[in-house]
């Protein structure tokens, strides 16, 4: 998914694809790398879409006055991106049971966020066979997020 430099148009990830099944995925499976151009529009629109109106996410002057270099992504968006990155790969009917994020450096406007991921393990939780995935998001300043997603995949093709 990309935001063009003018930030006016977002290209939606098209997820018309099938959903992976549990037997197809083994620990160690890597997810394809994805780059997100973090335009000011992206920072602002995601902040508002997550109903986060803190000024550091939409007002550059105030963000700088508070010691930041620019406006930056809010945590609800980072959480949402980690979820989306995994479901984009797994397919529309993958069930998300949990998303955990640990935040590192802020992801400022005009930076590029690169997401990496891999399947860490399979666990039995709440009588379900769940996959635990690790997702890393790096931007120019270093590691922005280290996330864990718990996912349930269908056992067979629907």
């Amino acid at each position, binding site marked *: 998914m990309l935001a063009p430099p003018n930030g006016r148009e977002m290209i939606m990830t098209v997820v018309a694809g099938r959903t992976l099944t549990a037997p197809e995925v083994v620990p160690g499976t*890597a997810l394809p790398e994805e780059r997100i151009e973090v335009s000011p529009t992206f920072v602002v629109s995601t902040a508002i879409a997550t109903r986060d109106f803190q000024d550091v996410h939409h007002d550059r002057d105030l963000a700088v006055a508070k010691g930041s270099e620019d406006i930056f992504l809010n945590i609800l968006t980072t959480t949402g991106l980690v979820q989306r990155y995994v479901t984009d790969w797994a397919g529309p009917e993958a069930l998300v049971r949990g998303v955990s994020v640990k935040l590192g450096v802020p992801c400022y406007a005009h930076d590029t966020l690169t997401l990496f991921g891999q399947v860490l393990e399979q666990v039995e939780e709440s009588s379900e066979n769940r996959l635990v995935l690790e997702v890393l998001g790096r931007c120019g300043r270093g590691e922005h997020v280290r996330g864990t997603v718990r996912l349930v995949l269908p056992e067979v093709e629907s």
Partner: protein
Amino acid sequence: MSGVSGIASIAGIGATEFSKESGRTELQLAAEATRTALDDAGLDPSEVDGMVTFTMDTNTETAVARELGMGELSFFSRVHYGGGAACATVQQAAMAVTTGMAEVVVCYRAFNERSGQRFGQVQPAVAGAATSAGVDNSWSYPLGLGTPGAQVAMFARRYMHTFGATSEDFGRVAVTDRKHAATNPNAWFYQRPITLAEHQDSKWITEPLHLLDCCQESDGGVAIVVTSTERARDLPHPPAVVQAAAQGSGSDQFTMTSYYRDDLTGLPEMGLVGRQLWQQAGLGPQDVQVGILYDHFTPFVLVQLEELGFCGRGEARDFIADGAVELDGRLPINTHGGQLGEAYIHGMNGITEGVRQVRGTAVNQVDEAHNVLVTAGTGVPTSGLVLSAE
């Protein structure tokens, strides 16, 4: 001079790009690197009759041979002990060529070490294995010492205590490597040098090691073609002559945890490699212009300088602080950026840099690099090479 000295040469080198996520199988990486190395050597896959890799490599010699369309192989061999195997693959190849067991030998190593199995993470399975190695690891892993970084940190703390070395002394190695990587377009950390302050500010991994004391985790593959020096002379590049090649394991040796020797401030197995290299090559430390020293963790670079005779015990920190390892210094090290800066391909990318220095084609070329020393993994049974221009 003795043994294999001078009889075999490296005629070709090849590598894939170095990344965090290659997006392809380890076999494909091995095959691509091998093809590139053979192209570099001007040889056809059908001319290869020997292959050597690490026991840790997941690609069998036969699988790589099939991908390349190689024919019959008369020699295949593997070397154990992780990164300690790197230079020993070339030693195996040189011995095979010298004894006539094979004529053209490919040494390779390829892995998705970042996107697949990461060596920097704790791998519980290695302690439980019903092997002597599993039992050895049972004296460290269950007790909380379960990563290579933590295992090296234990040596580093004792070294600091004995010689008064500091974290900054270790940090200078990282700064130098990253400076060299910054001008190497193939390095992961191309154009990203660091300062000593950044090293000091980087987070703790295992005290006394900061993040920036630890090498990267990388995906990639490297291959090296060894043949007789005589044949190499007719190939496109000038031969990088294997002037010396040695392995070493010390007394009371463990893999990463040789904690039970009288002294923890040295790497006797590397001392043994060094003594053999100088003896085989008829050279000494003063005759070497470039050092490619295995740098998975910075402290062992200091210990190697001492074990190999470039300075006295406990003096490496002054040797480094005086600028000796810089490009214009007495012994420029890791001119490609090392594993801290270029990529962690288990030491094999260090050998290719040694070849480029001897050929005169390195990005950070050292003037009159006639003899280059290359070492393999530290803290484990290890190996080393002296490569020379003719």
